[in-house]
């Protein structure tokens, strides 16, 4: 087999790129803004709803997020969240309903592999890395603050 030189490979890549449609970055950003903004506004509505019931903001946050998670999971089961994701891109993926989608979709897809290696394992296909690196980063930041003698949560160090 003839090995292509690095220069040939680079030229081929440039040649192929000419025929790729350009990514509609501006359009994607506008849609991400609208979809992500809408989900956050719904979250604000849920937050206000729970606060009207007499919960302080700190205690209203959990239930409001849980409702968004339930909606994200349910819409994934109905096949609707995939459509929202195709339109909204990261606007659908970044809110916590997208986290619920990332948990539910692979579990559903691999259901036929059983409750342990299908659903149980695939639930964390994407959520696993998210939780792992969130936890590692947060513990690292907390440890740094403690070592520097900066306790308390508010304000800049």
């Amino acid at each position, binding site marked *: 087999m003839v090995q292509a030189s690095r220069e040939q490979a680079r030229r081929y890549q440039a040649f192929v790129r000419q025929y790729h449609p350009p990514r509609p*970055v501006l359009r*994607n*950003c506008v849609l*991400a803004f*609208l979809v*992500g*903004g809408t*989900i*956050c*506004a719904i*979250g*604000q*509505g*849920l*937050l206000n709803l729970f606060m009207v019931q007499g919960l302080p903001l700190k205690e209203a946050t*959990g239930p409001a*997020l*849980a409702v968004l*998670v339930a909606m994200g*999971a*349910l819409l994934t*089961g*109905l*096949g609707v969240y995939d459509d929202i994701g195709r339109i909204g*891109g*990261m*606007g659908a*993926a*970044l*809110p*916590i309903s997208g*986290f619920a989608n*990332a*948990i*539910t979709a692979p*579990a*559903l897809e691999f*259901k036929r592999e059983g*409750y342990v290696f299908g*659903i*149980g394992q695939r*639930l964390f296909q994407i959520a696993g*890395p*998210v*939780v792992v690196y*969130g*936890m590692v*980063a*947060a*513990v*690292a*930041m*907390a*440890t740094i603050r*403690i070592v520097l003698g900066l*306790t*308390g*949560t*508010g*304000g800049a160090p």
Partner: protein
Amino acid sequence: MSSYAVAFVVGGLMCVLAQLVLDLTRLTAAHVMVLFVVLGAVAGGLGLYQPLVEFAGAGAMVPLPSFGNAVFQGIMEDVDTRGFIAVFTGGLTAAAWGITSAILFGWLVAALFNPKG
């Protein structure tokens, strides 16, 4: 009404930032999600994220960086009362609502529904 507008704009802008990273780099959506959770924890550790939460409400609490920030805040709150050992407990306590509901509802939907297409 304005709390909705602020949540919409701040949450929307965070999604635009994530979309730009997705479109302008070779990272996948999963990479971007991990990156933003880490950024949330770092911003929390620098004392930058909590003011945003107070300003934007759900606009800062619904997107994923909030998860990293919440874990950090949970640890630090617990550290105040229990000392360094709280590094092992405070984080998951703060993230309990999100993680528990995601596992529970995700499992329920996967068990009850069948995949489409």
